[in-house]
């Protein structure tokens, strides 16, 4: 099986060299032991202002296999748009989508490729994500969600997941293209739940591969300021509503949105800032409602299952 690696870069100077070294090493290992062909590493740069791009360019000059392709975007278009560009450029059966603030285990690809060979309806596989600072500790074993789209952890350590953790996952390219890729309107945050729901509803399976490990630095490339904290909260609230509108049937949508408004009123009571952010998020959803409804009807045609079945299979958890 052939695989490409897509990395969305944005000011990741600190992590760039360790990431590329570990990836090149893992690709060689994968070809030697696993018998798979790691063809290219595609770096989509979201208008970085630091030296990270230069580090990647130097690497691409030194190494011919795997081929390192660099795509420069003129402005910061967000994670989702950059991922779509990366996947469009890849011409392999599997595509690994990675954040820039991580490094990978030497043989992380081998068990994942075995899984894809074994299960033909497998759409996404997430490796075990550990902490960059403390490799012994687990950061994420995958995501679940409740009926209103709030994230839940994989507390039962189940191997099937509702959604992968956005930092690192491998997709089957045909499945990714079939469901229409990531929604570039999301910009970032909440895109993994949307991807997971749409994959399941189109009949593709998502699983965790605990034998494969990557080490992620949470928020390593996102500057921590108060403004960005609010922006993150706004995008999460906005994208949660959009995901519900796009994926649920009308009856469930009515119940879920009513419950979500009720939950958000309580959230808004905590502070004025939170209330303001939630109101802005809802305003942005209403302003773009035409686009969201168009997307809903686009996905309805590809829907093979419904959320009732996912709840019955234990993928959507109670609130």
């Amino acid at each position, binding site marked *: 099986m052939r695989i490409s690696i897509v990395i969305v870069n944005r000011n990741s100077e600190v992590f760039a060299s360790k990431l590329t070294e570990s990836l090149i090493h893992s690709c060689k290992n994968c070809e030697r032991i696993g018998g798979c062909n790691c063809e290219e590493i595609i770096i989509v740069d979201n208008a970085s202002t630091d030296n990270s791009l230069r580090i990647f360019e130097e690497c691409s000059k030194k190494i011919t296999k795997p081929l390192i392709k660099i795509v420069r975007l003129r402005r910061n278009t967000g994670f989702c748009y950059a991922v779509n560009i990366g996947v469009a450029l890849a011409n392999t059966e599997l595509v690994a989508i990675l954040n820039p603030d991580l490094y990978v285990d030497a043989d992380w690809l081998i068990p994942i490729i075995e899984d894809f060979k074994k*299960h033909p*309806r*497998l759409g996404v596989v997430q490796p075990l994500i550990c902490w960059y600072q403390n490799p012994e500790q687990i950061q994420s074993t995958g995501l679940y969600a409740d009926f209103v789209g709030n994230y839940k952890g994989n507390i039962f350590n*189940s*191997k*099937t997941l509702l959604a992968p953790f956005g930092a690192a996952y491998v997709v089957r390219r045909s499945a990714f293209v079939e469901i229409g890729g990531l929604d570039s309107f999301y910009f970032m945050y909440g895109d993994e739940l949307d991807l997971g729901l749409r994959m399941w509803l189109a*009949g593709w*399976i998502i*699983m965790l591969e605990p034998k494969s490990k990557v080490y992620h630095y949470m928020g390593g490339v996102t500057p921590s300021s108060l403004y960005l904290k609010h922006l993150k909260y706004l995008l999460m609230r906005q994208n949660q509503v959009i995901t519900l509108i796009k994926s649920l049937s009308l009856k469930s949508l009515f119940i879920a949105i009513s419950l979500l408004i009720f939950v958000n009123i309580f959230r808004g009571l905590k502070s004025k800032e939170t209330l303001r952010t939630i109101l802005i998020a809802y305003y942005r959803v209403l302003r773009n409602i035409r686009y969201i409804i168009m997307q809903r009807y686009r996905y309805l045609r590809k829907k*093979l*299952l419904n959320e009732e*079945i996912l709840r019955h*299979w234990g993928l959507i958890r109670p609130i």
Partner: protein
Amino acid sequence: MKKYYVIGVLLGQFKLRHDFIFIKTFVSIIVENTPKRLLVLLMTPVSIYAINYS
């Protein structure tokens, strides 16, 4: 005797009704779904089981 007879009839009707609902649901699943959806509905739980318990 008459009492037991009535209970028997009621239970029989209850069973018949359940059988009817079961058959109706089974037929409606086959009739209402496209072959692809039917395949996904049948195969996905098998795959989930295989992934979780292998």
